[in-house]
C-alpha cells in the first residue's frame, strides 16, 4: 500500500515536516522538552513556534524534569479507534507547573490514582514513510 497521510494517525516528526522536530529528537533520547519564547520567556505546553502573547516566532528548547503527578485520568475500555488498544489510561500530568495530556503505559488501570507520581516514557509508534522512527511522549508510573 502506498503511504496516505489521511490514514496515518501520527505526526510527521522529522525536520522535513515540522518546526518542532527538536522535541521529537530529544524525546527519542528519553528527554521531555518544550519551547520557551525568546521574546517574553513564557514556557509553553505543548511546544509552539509562534507566541500569541508577544508575537515572537523565536524560541529556545528547554528540557523538563520528566517527572510529574497525575492530575486527572480516565480509563477507556471500549470505543477506541482502530490500532489503539484498550483499556487505555488517558491522563493529565502536572509537570514543572505545566499540564500535559498523555497516556499512562505499564500501569494496572485499577491501581491508577490522582496524585500518583509518573515519569516520561517515550513510546515508539509506526515509522514514518521514510523509515524514520517516531516517538510519542507517554508516561509510566515513577
Amino acid at each position, binding site marked *: 500500500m502506498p503511504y496516505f497521510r*489521511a490514514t496515518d*494517525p501520527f505526526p510527521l516528526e522529522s525536520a522535513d515536516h515540522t518546526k518542532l522536530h527538536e522535541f521529537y529528537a530529544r524525546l527519542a533520547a528519553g528527554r521531555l522538552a518544550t519551547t520557551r519564547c525568546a521574546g517574553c520567556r513564557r514556557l509553553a505546553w505543548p511546544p509552539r513556534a509562534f507566541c500569541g502573547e508577544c508575537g515572537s516566532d523565536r524560541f529556545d528548547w528547554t528540557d523538563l524534569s520528566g517527572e510529574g503527578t497525575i492530575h*486527572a485520568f480516565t480509563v*477507556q475500555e471500549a*470505543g*477506541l*479507534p482502530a490500532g*489503539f488498544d484498550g483499556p487505555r489510561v*488517558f491522563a493529565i500530568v502536572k509537570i514543572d507547573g505545566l499540564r500535559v495530556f498523555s*497516556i499512562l503505559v505499564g500501569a494496572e488501570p485499577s491501581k491508577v490514582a490522582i496524585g500518583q507520581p509518573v515519569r516520561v516514557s517515550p513510546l515508539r509508534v509506526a515509522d514514518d514513510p521514510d523509515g524514520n522512527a517516531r516517538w510519542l511522549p507517554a508516561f509510566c508510573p515513577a
Partner: protein
Amino acid sequence: MRKVALVGAGVSKFGVRKASYRDLIWEAGKACFDATPAVKPKDVEGLVVGSVLPERTAFQSHISSMAAEALGIRPSVLSARTEHMCASGTVGIRYAYAFIAAGLADLVMVLGVEKLNQPTGDEAILNMGTGVDREWEAAFGLTAPPCFALAAQRHIAAYGTTEEQLAMVGVKNHTHAAKNPTAHFQKGATLDQVLCSRMISTPLRLFMCSPITDGAAAVLVASEDRARDLTDRPVWIRGTGQALDGFQLTSLHEDYAHWPALERAGRAAYRMAGVTAGDVDVAEVHDCFAIAELIAYEELGFCRKGEAGPFVAHGRSDYGGDVVVNPRGGLIGCGHPLGATGVAQAAEVFAQLRGEAGARQVLDAAVGLTHNNSGMGEHVVMIYGREDR
C-alpha cells in the same frame, strides 16, 4: 439590525442509515420544503451547510455547491460550509442570522448533514479523532469519550454527583426519543439498563453516550418581512452567543467540571434576548455525554453549580419540571450526526414554539434555547421566542 426568524424546518430519519451523504441531504431538504409549502427551492437565496467530515466519509468537499444542486437551490447572495466540529450546525445558523440581520439576505436555508457510519465500524471511530488535536491528543488514540469522562470524574469528586444521576440523563433522553420518529433509538431505557450497559470510559457507560449516527436536518431562516409573508407563526431568533475557552484539553479550565465558555455564551445570548434562565420553557442542550447535560444545567443557570445531579434526579429538567430539556431525545437518544445536530435542535425548538411537537409538546412553550458545543471548551447558545420581543 433586522429581526430574523425561522420559518420552516425538517429532519431526516437519524440512525445507522442505508443511505448516501446525498440521500441524507435530499431527505432533510424534502422534509423542510414539504413542511413549508410557501417556499420553493428557487426562492431560497442562500445556503449554509454545516458538515464536519465529508472529505473522510464521502470523499467529497465543495459541499455547499453540491447540496445546493441536489436541492435545486441557486444561491444568489450566500453559499458556504461551516465546519466547527460538533457545533457546525448552529454555527451555520449564526451565519445565516448575521447575513439576514445585516440586510444582505432575506431567505437562507441552513442544512446540517453527516454520514458517519461506514462499511467498517473502525473507520467511523478513527474519523472522530480529527476533532481533537492530531499531534498532541489524537496521536494517543483520544476521541471525545475520555474528554467528557474527565469532566464526569471531576463532577463526582467535587459535588458528590452519582452514577445514578448520570444514568438518569440517559433514561430521560432515551425515554423522550421513544416519542420521536426521527430518533436513532426508539425503545426507551430503564435505570438498570443504563447502569448495566457497557463501560466506555470511566465513569461513562454506553447509554450515557451519544452513538455514531447518520442524519441531516434543515431550517429556513428569513428576514422579518419575508417571515411574516411566509407564515403566521415565525419563530424568532432572539439572542445568540458563542465563546471559547480553548481547543486542547490542557488549555481549558483546570477543573473540567467548570465550562466558563458555556456560561459566557449563555449570558451573551440571554442578554441579547432580554430573558433569563428562568424564562426558558424548553431547551435542547448538547448531551453528547450525560455529564455534558448536567454541566449545561449549571452553566446555563437552570440550577446552581454542583446541583445538576439532584436537578435531574428530581425531574426538574423533565415534563412538569422547571424546564424541559431535550424533548426530542437529545444526542443520546437521537444520535449525533455532527453537523446535523445543531440544526435538528433548532428544528425541535421551532416545532415546540409553534405548538407542533405532537406527543413531545411542552405545554405553552414560548421561549426555547439551544446549546451546541465542540468539545468542553467551545460553546454556542441560541435563544428563540414565540414572540418577537
